[in-house]
């Protein structure tokens, strides 16, 4: 799988790509030798993989900075944005979904279900531009860029990050609300809920102890799978809001053909994605005793 990533990211002649089509062959060869990109692909790959595992990501071809510096600062920045987005959207999505499920078939339910689904379908850059138009340009409430001034306090940082985070909220709300709604409806229909009601438990207790506990399972799984999706969205959102995160780093590495940065970033994203999926599975098992024994499906 790693070979797959590496060969994806390594098309053609690196020296030629950096120096452009008009450089003479001698200097291209020289640069290739300097970078070690004239060696057989498999040697380069093993060499690179070896240093990746030990935490040495190499040096950026474009800026001559160590790749790890670039990646860690931008990863931290992106993490801030992602955490803020999740803090807003997860409770909102769950409350929305559970509310829609309790009022199944009502106008509010239709609004949350169809509206959420539609909002999800709209690309991030469209939401971002609409949000900038309304909140930054129209109402003048929030800044149109996400990069806070150096040394800004927590609240100023949040103020700057609010619009990009809201972009993700619009895109992710539909997914989460949909899962929470489906889970809650299923739990409301289940025998154990009926038993709990017949037993005479107060409705609130039934909801909290029996319905929610079961309905939030698939929701947690879907939240974790959305992390990979979120990283894809980060490229676009960070570009629009001019925010120096991992997406922006990736985009810049792409346009500058900065392969060391590109490889490490992509591999790191792949790893984050896999870890997120793994955590989702583990959480699912912890919360649901039925799948704890590792039965398939």
């Amino acid at each position, binding site marked *: *799988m790693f070979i*797959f*990533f590496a060969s*994806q*990211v390594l*098309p*053609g002649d690196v020296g030629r790509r950096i120096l452009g089509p008009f450089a003479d062959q001698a200097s291209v060869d020289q640069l290739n030798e300097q970078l070690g990109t004239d060696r057989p692909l498999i040697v380069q790959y093993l060499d690179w993989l070896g240093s990746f595992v030990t935490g040495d990501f190499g040096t950026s071809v474009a800026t001559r900075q160590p790749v790890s510096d670039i990646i860690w600062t931008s990863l931290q920045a992106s993490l801030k944005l992602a955490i803020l987005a999740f803090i807003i959207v997860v409770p909102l999505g769950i409350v929305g979904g559970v509310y829609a499920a309790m009022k199944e078939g009502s106008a509010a339910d239709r609004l949350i279900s*169809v509206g959420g*689904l*539609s909002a*999800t*379908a*709209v*690309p*991030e*850059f*469209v939401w971002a*531009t*609409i949000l*900038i*138009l309304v909140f*930054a*340009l129209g109402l003048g409430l929030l800044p*149109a860029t996400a990069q806070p001034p150096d040394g800004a306090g927590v609240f100023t940082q949040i103020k700057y990050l609010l619009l990009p985070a809201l972009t993700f909220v619009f895109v992710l709300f539909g997914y989460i609300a949909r899962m929470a709604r489906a889970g809650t409806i299923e739990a409301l229909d289940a025998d154990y809920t009926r038993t709990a009601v017949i037993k005479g438990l107060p409705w609130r207790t039934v909801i909290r102890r029996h319905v929610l506990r079961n309905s939030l399972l698939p929701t947690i799984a879907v939240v974790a799978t959305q992390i*990979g*999706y979120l*990283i*894809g*969205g980060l*490229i*676009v959102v960070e*570009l*629009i809001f001019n925010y120096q995160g991992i997406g922006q780093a*990736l*985009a810049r590495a*792409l*346009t500058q053909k900065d392969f060391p940065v*590109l490889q490490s970033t*992509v591999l790191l*994203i*792949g790893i984050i*994605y*896999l870890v997120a999926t793994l955590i989702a599975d583990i959480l699912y098992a912890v919360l649901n005793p039925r799948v704890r024994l590792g039965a398939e499906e």
Partner: protein
Amino acid sequence: MSSPVGAPDPLAVTPPVVAAPGDERRMAQRERFRLLLRSKTFIAGAIIVGFWVFCAIFGAAIVPHDPLRSNPLNDLAAPSGESWFGTDRLGRDVFSRVIVGARGIMIVAPTATVLATVVGTALGLVTGYFRGPVDDILSRIIEAVLALPVIIIATLTVVSLGPSNLTMIIVIGLVFAPIIARTVRAAVLSERELEYVAAARLRNEGNGYILFREILPNVSGPIMVEFTVRLGYAIFTVATLSFLGLGIQPPAPDWGLQIFEHYGVISGGFWWPVLFPALAIASLVVGVNLVADAVTQAFER
């Protein structure tokens, strides 16, 4: 012994092998389309999508201005009676560009989705039916592709191959194919254990015949659902790639490209070259998703 009409899911109901299963299937199919036409979500979505299909086909003939003609003396003019949505930074008419802009995306996204569906269905049929080493190898490759966010794979490939409509079709087609393959494989896995497949094998039918004439029609429901859902994602991806400058190339009046070219001037108060293409994309994806939602409900329950 016949499966009840109204619950026509071949996966859940497992139609028993009795006389004329084809007729039964056709009836179930007709029932689904009746359900679809009665769904408000479907009608609303179809009207929106239909409008943009109309624009894609006839847009160039009906717009008031040439979408490519620039007029530097009249750049970034506010919306007026002359140009309803204003003009962009090269003085081109935004309204005409939005209408004609439907064409590029309406060619690339559906073509890519068809490619993805054909490749994905073939992969899903083969892996699900033969199992064994073929399945193992292909499934590992599928998992490898699925391990990265779609937009990142697409971006990397387009950058290395160079942006063009054909590249986009191939990239999106091949990136979506594994996702469709996974769904089809799951459907085939439950289908291949059914009696009609065993019967066909006893009749000494070839593998190709069993796959395409026996199993394929019975998994058409999930394939339909996948197609409409993926079409929504394809539009999403094409628009995003164009926005990143990796998709449809200038001077084509593409929506994502228009936003890309003008999001820098938003802060100057020029909202019209950005807002109208944004609303166009939003309406198209919402339309396609309404249709997809209705199709999913009609075919899956």
